[in-house]
């Protein structure tokens, strides 16, 4: 389980996270929802020790973040994290070189699923294909948790559909996923838990299935209710 406990973070004088607390379990898709600048990306960066927090605690399966965390958690940011002059196949080699959890068979499978050309240079890829290559680098790792920051950001409808398909496949199944997205419609039916963030705090945390069954409300309905 990923536990984010009372995390506070400031950028200069601006408080971005003001005591954020939530947890994400393995086998569940947890979606962080909120308007721009609410601290969704900062939370993900903090989980991966890519930005320091001022107070609070983040635990991955009960342990503080350390170098072994990166064998348990993969972070897929909203931009690709490989040099533009690198070919896709070189990026795969790089990942295989450094990550003991790299699964080449799965990488080949995703490569085929997304119809990516391994000879293409990352800098030459279209926005959609860049997003797919980015997902490939994260999802081909045999990790327990995957953090995805805006995986649908700025890409066409067909690519979005393809990426959404990934969530129902065995590539995501059994893993704990934390996702941030503005395109909530694309994955609403896939989300297990939703966490609405506002002004650096968790405003509401709910089980999407329960809310749908008991209250007949969609995630967007709850968002409207809470944020408007």
């Amino acid at each position, binding site marked *: 389980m990923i536990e984010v406990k009372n995390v506070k973070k400031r950028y200069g004088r601006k408080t971005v996270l003001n005591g954020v607390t939530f947890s994400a379990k393995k086998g569940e898709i947890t979606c962080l929802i909120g308007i721009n600048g609410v601290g969704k990306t900062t939370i993900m960066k903090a989980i991966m020790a890519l*930005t320091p927090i001022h107070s609070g605690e983040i635990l991955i399966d009960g342990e503080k973040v350390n*170098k072994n965390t990166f064998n348990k958690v993969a972070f897929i940011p909203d*931009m690709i*994290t490989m040099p533009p002059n690198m070919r896709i196949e070189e990026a795969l080699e790089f990942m295989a070189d450094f990550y003991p959890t790299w699964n080449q068979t799965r990488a080949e499978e995703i490569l085929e699923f997304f119809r990516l050309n391994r000879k293409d240079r990352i800098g030459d890829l279209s926005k959609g294909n860049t997003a797919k290559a980015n997902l490939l680098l994260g999802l081909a790792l045999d990790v327990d948790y995957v953090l995805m920051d805006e995986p649908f950001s700025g890409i066409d409808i067909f690519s979005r559909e393809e990426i959404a398909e990934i969530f129902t496949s065995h590539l995501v199944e059994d893993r704990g996923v934390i996702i941030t997205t503005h395109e909530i419609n694309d994955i609403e039916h896939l989300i297990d838990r939703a966490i609405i963030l506002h002004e650096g705090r968790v405003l509401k945390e709910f089980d999407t299935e329960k809310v749908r069954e008991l209250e007949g409300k969609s995630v967007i309905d709850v968002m409207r209710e809470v944020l408007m």
Partner: protein
Amino acid sequence: MKSYVKLVNFEFNRYFKIYVVLVGITILCQITGVIFEGLRFVKEAQETMQHEMITMEQYAMNYGPISMYDFIETIWFIGPVAICIVTLLIYMLFIWYRDWYGKHTFIYRLLMLPVERLNIYFAKVTAIFLFVLGLVSLQLILLIIENNILTRLVPEALLMEMSITSLLTFDILIILYPPTFSEFLLYYGAGFLFILVVFTMILLERSFRIKGILLAACYGGVIFALLLAPILINESLNDYFYPIEILAIEGILALMIGTVSIMLSRFLLNKKITV
């Protein structure tokens, strides 16, 4: 250790193209230069000898022979060496900042590797140091070749032949090729320390941004003052210490500064770095 070696190899390959260009420029400039300077000298000498109706020996006596030392002072030699030094100095900054900027922020990937983050720091330090050693070795080979070319181009009577060992005692070459091991440790140790301090300053800036620039400037300033202090104190004491004692004090200071820089960089990379 394995991941450190892989990271060094990766860093080395990323700079390799620019490095090959640098090597190419150095070889081209210096070889062209030594041929050009050698032929020009011979041509001018012949013209003067004809005009003044003197022998080669007399010419050498009146105007002086040419030697490799004359070539080393020309732009053909100094130019590419300066280009290499400036490029490597710029690359010391570029090796970090290129990973942060642009659409493809590779620093995310580097910091998310399941390895000690200090390995990234050491891999970059090692890569820079390897580039320096590579260029210094190339220069030594080039000096031997250039000396050979000059010997073939210029008649014996007009040439002051120099051995490579005597050549290496001149100007910048004595720093690049120190004659003793202790001097090697001194010059290259100072270079190594410079890289460690600059990298720590970059990490301070990357961790605290605007405040970090100030912190980095303070860190650099304090270290400069620390290294200068024994020399200034000794001067104020009318050279109370022997040079070897000053050297020992500087050596201990350098070791301390190096250790603090590494420890501070480790702390920044693990606890303070922001992407």
